[in-house]
């Protein structure tokens, strides 16, 4: 009797979870797309700003410092509001574009600092050796410094990538139908809060865990030679 009730309860719960999953599934690609586009843009901006932070030119250096300080000091949620409701009204941005810009700009500030630190971590003897061989500053950066920095910055950049995937949920607030927004819609229709957010959480977890696995694999595969234990 008790066993039978338990079994019924479990099958009912599974049924709900299945329904939630079916409801949420179409929104998952939007979360992935939003994260990928925004993060690619953030990397590009971050590299430029990171290099600008190391510039000999005082003005460029000061401007890039302000860029980083301002964007790092304002919550992403506020930046999303500002870009969608503030700039968006003027420039007529749609939700996706506004979301991408907000995440890209915000994360570019963090990435700029990581990239700057990665470049500065390279011993100055490396610059001296490259320059003394007659290489130009550009060639030195391109062939000597950046390949070494890359290995240093891959783990923290991967961290930021995973963080940006999670932070993409904030864009739900302006009504872009990504995973979290879909969760809210399901909840407001069927009022099952515990199960809805459990499934949303698990889907995020599966995505972030697979990402960290992927990063670990890539790190191993594209490991820069000459570091760590001799092989």
């Amino acid at each position: 009797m008790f066993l039978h009730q338990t079994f019924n309860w479990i099958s009912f719960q599974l049924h709900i979870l299945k329904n939630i999953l079916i409801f949420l599934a179409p929104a998952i690609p939007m979360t992935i797309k939003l994260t990928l586009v925004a993060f690619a843009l953030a990397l590009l901006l971050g590299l430029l700003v990171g290099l600008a932070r190391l510039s000999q030119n005082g003005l460029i250096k000061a401007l890039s410092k302000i860029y980083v300080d301002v964007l790092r000091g304002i919550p992403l949620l506020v930046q999303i509001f500002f870009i969608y409701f503030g700039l968006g009204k003027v420039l007529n941005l749609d939700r996706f574009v506004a979301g991408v810009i907000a995440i890209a700009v915000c994360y570019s500030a963090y990435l700029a600092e990581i990239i700057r630190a990665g470049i500065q971590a390279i011993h100055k003897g490396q610059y001296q050796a490259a320059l003394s061989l007659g290489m130009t500053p550009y060639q030195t950066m391109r062939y000597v410094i950046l390949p070494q920095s890359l290995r240093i910055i891959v783990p923290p950049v991967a961290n930021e990538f995973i963080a940006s995937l999670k932070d993409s949920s904030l864009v739900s607030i302006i009504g872009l139908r990504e995973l979290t927004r879909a969760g809210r819609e399901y909840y407001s229709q069927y009022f099952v809060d515990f199960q809805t957010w459990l499934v949303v959480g698990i889907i995020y977890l599966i995505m972030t865990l697979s990402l960290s696995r992927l990063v670990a694999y890539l790190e191993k595969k594209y490991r820069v030679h000459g570091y760590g234990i001799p092989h």
Partner: protein
Amino acid sequence: MIAKCGNFLLPRDVIIPRSSSGDDNIPLERGHAFMIIQTREISKRFGEIIALDGVNFEVEAGEVVVIIGPSGSGKSTLLRCLNGLEKTDSGEIIIDGIKLDKDKKSIHKVREELGMVFQEFNLFPHLSVLGNLCLAQETVRKRSKPDAEKISLELLKKVGLLEKKESFPNQLSGGQQQRVAIARALAMNPRIMLFDEPTSALDPEMIGEVLEVMKNLAKEGMTMLVVTHEIGFAREVAKRIIFMDQGKIIEEGRTEDILNSPQNPRTIAFLSKVLK
């Protein structure tokens, strides 16, 4: 009275001229020879610290000159100024007839003439030994990959590390790394080699192999300017020694004169410590 006090009354910064000891055929009046390095009154300060204070010296083509002096005396700064890694505050540097000034072209031209070897080797850790030798040949000298590799292999053979061509720097001993660094500099066909304390970061048993490579280079007639504490090397290879202290050249002259009968009290004090 003054004569009795001897050198101790000399102004601290006078460079003591040496008279030729007759039968020796090393020309001390070097005005007629080709001066491949010339510096005039070069000065450099780092904030409050005066690293170089009006340094004048010349190096003749094919000459091996050793610079000695206590740490912080400006020896390394002097070498870095010669190839433009540090900018001088004042004074003039002429390398192989090219005046080193602010514009990037002259710095570039000068660096093509100068090879430099560092205390810390500074090999590129992400490249193999061969990659280290080829990189600047391909990017700066614009040699094709096969040409660059051919030259690299010849030089590796010369420094006795042909079998290590595929290794990475962290798989080599300090002495091997420094020999690779010398080969890397030579691959650019420099006319002058600068050595900045090339053996100071090495374990004692590895110093010999690096000095051996340097001695061979000297025998081939390479112009070399070497900052080192290896007095034995200086005695064997160097034609001249320059003693620096506090950013100035205190004394310079023929190796045997400086080592056997230094005149300036500071040179005497330094050598008595080093030769102990």
